[in-house]
């Protein structure tokens, strides 16, 4: 397909990988922020094309993975109420809460539905005025404009039986949390291309300057990823720490103005807890005051539900780039996608799940 196939050309990928090998003279650690990129890197074996000194570590960029257990439990509690229809994207349904997952609620008779777009959830609300329709809104800045639009339209159209359970997170504060954490190994970032499609890349400039790290806005195909790595490594070798944008076919400096306008209207920046990492100031989006009536947590009174995580899982270290999935003793044995113990095994975009899917554990042990 156009704008996909040409960026998967193996010959171009080999040439870019050669260029990386020529540029790199010292060991560097580069983090790709987005789980979609992690998935593509492992799937296409991009990391295996790179010279030994260059390490790619996987970042916190999977919204499903970083949604705290207690928010999953709140969604489950809401979904079990009579008269409620809970809608979400498919991958949220399989995430285990502390007792069960949303699929289980569905099999027990709860009205839990998978939607492709938040607008579908709004349509369900309009078609079923006697039911309370709740949309479980997870995602980064990529998804916030869509979820924001659903709330914006609900307010415009006076849809009273619609609300959202918001677990929205923002990427730049998480990058800063990683850079300022003890033992940080990350020398440079591949910024998440589709987050930047919405937000642009101005907000990375203070980060790059303050921590002296290059940030390269990167897409999701093999050539995009290799070009991102090449530009990041070149900057590191030259001692530069700039923000660069080779994903310019999709990303503009200022992002998408209209999308940012709706996000700014519907949401406000709040502190948020990340699964595996903990509280990060200013890293979430909650509903703005004018839209608080659409807050499912308040409507259903579930804001106080709180739980603790399993102690064995090291996904917090993986999400900060300090460990790889194969370093976890539970990986592939006690923890699998069917029975996940932790955040990064849960979603297909989590690093542990990507390693498991592409059989990296067999390569390592056999």
């Amino acid at each position, binding site marked *: 397909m156009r*704008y*996909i196939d040409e960026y998967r050309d193996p010959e171009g990928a080999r*040439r870019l990988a050669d260029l990386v090998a020529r540029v790199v003279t010292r060991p560097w650690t580069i983090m790709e922020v987005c789980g979609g990129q992690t998935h593509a890197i492992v799937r296409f074996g991009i990391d295996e094309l790179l010279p030994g000194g260059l390490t790619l570590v996987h970042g916190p*960029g999977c919204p499903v993975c970083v949604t705290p257990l207690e928010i999953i439990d709140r969604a489950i509690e809401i979904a079990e109420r009579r008269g409620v229809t809970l809608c979400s994207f498919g991958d949220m349904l399989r995430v285990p809460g502390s007792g069960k997952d949303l699929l289980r609620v569905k099999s027990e008779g709860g009205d839990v539905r998978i939607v492709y777009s*938040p607008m579908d959830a709004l349509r369900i609300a309009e078609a079923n005025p006697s039911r309370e329709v709740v949309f479980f809104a997870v995602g980064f800045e990529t*998804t916030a404009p*869509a979820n924001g639009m659903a709330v914006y339209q609900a307010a415009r159209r006076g849809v009273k039986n619609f609300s959202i359970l918001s677990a929205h997170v923002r990427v730049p504060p998480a990058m800063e949390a990683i850079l300022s954490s003890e033992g940080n190994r990350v020398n440079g970032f591949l910024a998440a291309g589709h987050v930047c499609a919405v937000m642009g890349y101005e907000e990375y400039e203070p980060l790059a300057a303050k921590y002296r790290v290059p940030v390269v806005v990167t897409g999701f195909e093999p050539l995009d990823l290799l070009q991102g790595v090449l530009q990041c490594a070149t900057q590191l070798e030259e001692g530069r720490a700039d923000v660069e944008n080779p994903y310019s076919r*999709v990303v503009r400096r200022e992002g998408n103005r*209209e999308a940012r306008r709706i996000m700014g209207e519907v949401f406000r920046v709040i502190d948020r807890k990340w699964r595996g990492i903990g509280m990060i100031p200013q890293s979430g989006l909650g509903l703005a005051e004018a839209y608080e009536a659409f807050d499912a947590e308040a409507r259903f009174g579930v804001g106080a539900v709180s739980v603790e995580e399993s102690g064995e899982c090291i996904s917090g270290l993986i999400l900060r780039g300090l460990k790889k999935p194969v370093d976890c003793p539970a990986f592939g044995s006690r923890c699998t996608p069917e029975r996940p113990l932790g955040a990064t095994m849960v979603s297909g975009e989590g690093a542990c799940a990507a390693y498991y899917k592409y059989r990296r554990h067999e390569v390592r042990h056999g």
Partner: protein
Amino acid sequence: MCLAVPGRIESVEAGGDPMSRTGKVSFGGILKDVNLAYVPEAGVGDYVIVHVGFALNKVDEEEAKEVFQYLREMELADEAEPGGGTG
């Protein structure tokens, strides 16, 4: 979850409110209804990046050649520089 894919706008629904602008987008022949509110400049024949039913941005045709131009430049630089191609 953050997956966003390029598709071609096949038709645009005529309608009043620009915030509800929608159209049909083809992903390798599979048509989907997509909200076009965030890409007011995009029309039939344009490629857009679509995520959870919303077009996030128009794909810029000129900029799309960037990586290929970059590779060509590196090659030319290699040829110009004696011994540069051995690395």
